[in-house]
Structure formats: C-alpha cells, structure tokens
C-alpha cells in the first residue's frame, strides 16, 4: 500500500468561533502504480486533500501513512524531505521560476537534496527528454507555450523519481487540445509505472484515469474504477 489514509480531517479556524471543515473524515487507500482522479464541485476539499497527500500541510485529525511511514505528525524539515524525495507536484499555474531556464527549473528539486552538479544536469536533461523538450532546455518560461511550460513542470515533478505525481488541475490553464496533449503524457507516465493523482473538474479529463474519487463537502461520495 502506497497511501493509507484514515479518518482525515482538516479544519480551518476563521476566528470568532467560525470553523471551516474542508475535510470531514476521509478514508483513502492508493496502491503503487495507480492512476487516480479526484473530482467534485468547487469547495469540496479536493485541493485540501491534495495538499495533505503532498505533505504541504498537516491534518487536524486522522492518520496518513505514505510508503509505510506515518507522515501526519512530522516536523517541517521532515516534511520538506518527503516533498523532495517522494512527491512530484504539477500545478494548474505551472509555478516555474520566471528567471530560470527550463533546465534550471527542472534541476531545482535536485539542488535541494545536494545532487552534484554534473549528475543534476544529466538527470534534468533526461527528464526534459521524457517530456519531449530536449530542444527547449535553455528557454525561459516566457519563451515557451503554455503546454510546453506544463511539460517543464512535469519534467520537474519527475526528476527525483518520486513515489507519487500530484497534479492539481494540470490542464485548467490550457486549451482543450493542449490539455489532451498533457493528458497523453500522463497516460504514458502511468503506463511506465508512475503513481499519478490528479484533481479535475472535467469528466473527459477524469476519463483518462483508471479510478475516480468523488468528493462532496469534505467527504468521499463515490469511489469508482473504470472497467479495464
């Protein structure tokens, strides 16, 4: 079992005794190699769940085991370690560093785990090759199309060979043709054995995944597998 989540709660204190319960007791198990889509209406807690799975945040209550390691109560530095080694993020707005080249953006996670420069370059080049961007490695984000930017972000997510790739509405800022291109890339990565979790509103995007989890009001409403 790669991810083992039990009774996960996330409550935001808004002051004056007002509380927002973004997640209200989520149970979720995910196997290695799964390709899963999280769906649900706006405000249902999809991003909140993603952030918890991605160790950007800690739950108010409940347990989260990643790769057999209890991560719901880790310190800041330990969470940074998990984010670096186990998780690859892909964001809706790409979140590339504007001043840096595609190559340098892909190198970033490797810088933070002290990979030597020569090895870093090699790995980053390989990751860019995996998303068909070898010829764009010295371009800055503003010299790339939206789809190319998202591919750089995916290369960055891949570069450390993480256990999971997390993508929060990765096609949200792209037109449908480019979105489809990106989804084909995820498809390919999934076939290569990567574990992928993606958040989306759109059914045809979710259709790429083998399994879809529907959230409503912070709870799992439906968990269905596509017939193979």
């Amino acid at each position: 079992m790669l991810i083992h989540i039990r009774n996960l709660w996330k409550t935001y204190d808004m002051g004056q005794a007002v509380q927002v319960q973004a997640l209200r007791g989520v149970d979720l198990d995910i196997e290695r190699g799964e390709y899963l889509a999280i769906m649900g209406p706006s405000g249902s807690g999809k991003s909140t769940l993603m952030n918890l799975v991605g160790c950007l945040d800690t739950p108010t209550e409940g347990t989260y085991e990643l790769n057999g390691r209890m991560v719901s109560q880790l310190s800041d530095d330990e969470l940074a370690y998990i984010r670096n080694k186990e998780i690859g993020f892909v964001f809706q707005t790409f979140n590339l560093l504007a001043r840096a080249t595609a190559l340098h953006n892909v190198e970033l996670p490797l810088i933070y785990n002290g990979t030597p420069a020569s090895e870093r370059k090699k790995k980053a080049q390989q990751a860019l090759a995996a998303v068909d961007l070898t010829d764009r490695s010295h371009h800055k984000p503003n010299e790339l199309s939206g789809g190319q930017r998202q591919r750089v972000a995916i290369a960055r997510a891949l570069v450390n060979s993480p256990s999971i790739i997390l993508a929060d509405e990765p096609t949200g800022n792209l037109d449908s043709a480019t979105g489809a291109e990106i989804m084909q890339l995820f498809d390919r990565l999934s076939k290569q054995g990567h574990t992928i979790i993606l958040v989306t509103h759109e059914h045809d995007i979710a259709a790429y995944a083998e399994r879809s989890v529907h959230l409503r009001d912070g709870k799992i409403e439906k968990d269905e597998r596509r017939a193979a």
Partner: protein
Amino acid sequence: MGKLKTPIWESVKISLSSLRANKLRSILTLIGVIIGVTSIITMVSLISGFNKLVADQLATLGSTTFIVEKFGIILSDDDWFDAMKRKDLTLADYQAIAAGCSECEEVAIQKASNRKVKYGREHFSRVPIVGITPNYMKVVALDDIVDKGQGRVITEFENDHRRQVAILGPELVDKFFPMLDPIGKKVRIGGIDFTVVGVPKKRGSFLGDNQDRFAAIPFSVYQKYFSNKLEPWEGLQFYIKAKDYPSMEKAQDQVRAILRARRHVPYHDKDDFGMYTAETLMDLFKKVTTGISFTLVGIVSISLLVGGIVIMNIMLVSVTERTREVGVRKALGARRRSILLQFLIEAVTLAVAGGTAGILLGVLLAKVISWTTPIPAAIEPWSIIAGLLVSTGVGVFFGVFPAAKAARLDPIEALRYE
C-alpha cells in the same frame, strides 16, 4: 529518516542570480553602506596621515626642547583674557634663565612680526620676520635645513655686532632671484637693508602655514629696528633645550622657579606664563583629532544604520515579491534553512558589495584629497578590515529579519499568493 543537504554554494548561486536580476535596485540599495564605509576609510586615512605629519613636524622640535611664552596653550576665552593681562617675557628674564638654569643646554630667543620684504621691483608684503639668537637654529634644527640649502646660518658674532644679515625663505628667493645666486644680495626688510647669508631647503606648508615664506635675522638687529611699541605682541618666546631627555623635567622646574620668582607669582597661584613641549602639543593635537573621530563615528553610524534599514526594506520587498517563488521552492523540498540562507546571503552580499565599493571609493577619495590639498593621507589596513566587517555585520543584522520571514512562510499560502 534521511536529511536533505543543500551545499552552501548552491544558496550563494541562487542569491547572486536574483541580485543580478535586479541590478539597478541592488546598486541603489547600497548607497547608504557605501557612504558609511567611504567615510570610515577616508576619515581614518586623513586623520592618521595628519597625525603622522604633525608628529614629524614636532619631531624637529625634538624631545628635549620646550617653549616658554606669555600665552601658552589657549583653550578658552577665559584663558585668553587671563593671558592678555600677563606681563611680557623680557630680555632680563632670558638672561636670568640663561644664567640660572643648570640643566639647560641652550636658551634661545625668538620674536616675530610681519614686514614688507623687497628686492628691486619685486616685493612681498607681510612676511613673517623672526628675530633669533643664533642658537635658536640649533634648537629647532633650522641649521640642518640651511645646510641642505644654500649658504650658512647666522653666527654669534653677527648677533653680537648687530650685522644686518638674513636667512631668506626659499619662496622669496624664487621670486627675487630666479636666475641669480641669492647669497650676498641685499634685500630690504621693513625698510632696512639686509645681506642674504643663507637659504634653507624647501619644506612646503604645514597646517596651512607656509614654511618657506619667512626671513630670519639676528635678534639684536630685530630689537634695534623692529621692536617698537606699535607691535601688540611685545613679549619674547624662549626655545629651551635641556641637556638630555632625563633632565627635561628638572630643566622645566628650574625655568619655572626662576620665572615665578622674577614675576612675583604667589605660592598658590598658577604660572603666569605658558610652557609646553612637543609632547604636550602632540597630546593636545591627538585630543582634538580624537574628538573629531568620535563625531565621525556618529555620522558613520547613522549612515550605516540608514544603509542597513534600506537593505532591510528592500529585502522585505523582495521577500514579498517572491512569496510564490518561496512557495514553489518549499513544495520542491527546500527546507527553512535553505530559504533563510538564500535571503540572508543576498542581504550580506549586498552589504559587502557596498562595503567593497565604499573601501575603493574611500581610498580613492583619500588619495585625491592628499594630491590636491596639503592634507596627507595614510591608508590604514585595519580601517579596510573594519569596513568589511562592519558591512558584513550590517548585512547580517538587517538581513536576518526579512530572511526569517521568508523561511517561515507557509508553503500553501505562499503558493496561493498573487
């Protein structure tokens, strides 16, 4: 669980690249630190150059010489009014000291006033004319300077027989005798003819006082022609050389006793004359320059404080602007420490760059001042080290708060920041 290690030079690289991206802003940020460090270097150089110059000059007076005069060292208006009421030192005082001071090797007289000096059609108005006993030249090492120049010093014989001879400052010689040998020529000083017997080597100016523009004549001649009651400062100045350094104090005590007795100073009263040595003058000068230094330390501190606050302000702006960047870095596994270092190194680099520019500017400024004015400069290595340390300190002190702020950012909020 394993631990992430980010080599420090990677943090340095990240910091430098973000400084390069904001070149103009980075440079403007530095002005305060540059001004602060430039002032440190320039002022330290000038003050220490000045101190050295004064020390050199006073060294010609020697450690065994002291000066006795009516005024002494005047530090306040009260001192001045007191001194004005005093009796002048007289020739009789001189004779009493010369006869009564066993620890004194030489007792010389110097008296000065300004006169017109003329040769042919050329003239200088208001040249300091000093009447001296011949031993005065030995006491203040003027004999050496004449030896290195032309001609000879004034002799005892000339003083005893009131010969109208003069030692003429090189500046006057240059104007009067550009081509001719000055020795043996007659010049008119205050309407009286004098024969030039010696010309000292050029010395330049000291504290704005042109040391090459003067004429020295025998004291006896000065008394005869120039000592009229129209001169406000009638008194004599005595330049006294003790036998050796150990007998300095004794010599001063003897002179003091002789003068107090002759001038009937009551037992409990202060001396009604001034007595000082090169050392006293040096101490006084050091006190003045230390005072100036403290004022400067104040100015420098203020400009460094302002410079530091500017750096802090710019770093806070930079942290806010790059909130999203911090979020991204954290999402990719940057620890707090890495983010803290990134911004701290940025601040320190800024400050040290300012410090280095300040050092270069300061050295340059000190050199330019020493080339264009009589004020000398001595670059002190410790002031350069101090400049670097102080600017590093400013960078760390004012950089740590913005850097800590960046490091504490919550990754999710940072990522969501617009």
